[in-house]
């Protein structure tokens, strides 16, 4: 789901940073209000965990591979705004140090794997929290939601930005990008769901302590 440099039109890049920047600022403010002696190392460790879990590439049929993200876990253990800022930091480090995902795509990548995944996962979890498998379902669907968003952003590129019938940026339209992204993540979602459920249970988080947004 890491979009690389050159895949998005400059217009997409500008709009995405215009949308993401105020959200990052607000999330940073929220970070302050969530901090105490217990949460500071937890937030650091969960962010590091998100980085490491993304390194577990899982192959699926069709010559593709993918990975879990860990956004929903942070969202339900701490808060979705914190999850958004944690995953954004992970994506920044991946782009700068490891060349995984583009710098110009940082805002889109943060919005998909950070914002969309964290908030969809968080609200699904709240909705389902009386059920034992709420973390699994929330994690699963959050990844599918994020992949749908990525499919949309990629798919509109050839629609708006082509020259002489040749796409300038990502070349495949919505009819391909959305089903391919969502289809693959219907499988990778299992990894995200399992990861979320397992770590959530290991952390023995009691239901009452779900933070308000």
């Amino acid at each position, binding site marked *: 789901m890491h979009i690389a440099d050159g895949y998005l039109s400059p217009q997409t890049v500008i709009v995405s940073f215009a949308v993401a920047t105020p959200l990052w600022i607000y999330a940073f403010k929220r970070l302050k209000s969530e901090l105490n002696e217990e949460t500071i190392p937890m937030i650091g460790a969960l962010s590091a965990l998100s980085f490491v879990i993304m*390194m577990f590439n899982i192959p699926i049929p069709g010559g593709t591979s993918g990975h879990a993200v860990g956004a929903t876990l942070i969202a339900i253990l701490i808060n979705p705004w914190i999850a958004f800022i944690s995953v954004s*930091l992970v994506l920044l480090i991946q782009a700068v140090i490891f060349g995984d995902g583009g710098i110009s795509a940082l805002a889109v990548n943060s919005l998909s794997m950070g914002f969309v995944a964290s908030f969809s996962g968080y609200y699904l979890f709240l909705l389902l929290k009386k059920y034992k498998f709420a973390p699994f379902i929330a994690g699963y669907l959050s990844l599918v939601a994020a992949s749908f968003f990525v499919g949309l952003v990629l798919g509109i590129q050839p629609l708006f930005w082509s020259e002489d019938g040749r796409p300038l940026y990502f070349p495949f339209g919505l009819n391909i990008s959305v089903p391919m992204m969502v289809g693959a993540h219907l499988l990778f979602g299992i990894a995200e769901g399992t990861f979320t459920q397992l770590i959530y249970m290991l952390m023995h988080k009691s239901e009452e302590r779900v933070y308000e947004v």
Partner: protein
Amino acid sequence: MKYKIFMILGTLVLLVPLGLLSDSPAWGEWESEYYMKILGFIPKGIADAKGIKPLLPDYSLGSSHPVLWYYVSALLGAGLIYIIMLMLSKIGTKNAK
């Protein structure tokens, strides 16, 4: 609950070479040659893309010792992210006071 998350993190770092078992790229994360093969051309934006030169491209340095570099990458990335998050938290708490 604090120590537990570090145990989990440590376990996953130890297991991280498992992530190397798949050498297929993610959908939409292909090399430029892929577009040449499928479309017969490389979209201009992708061909002209100027990124920065990463320190450890694709979590490795050269093609030898992939497991070692994957471990280095995992430790470096996880360590950096942990430290930056603590620093952000420090700034946050300072401003709050």
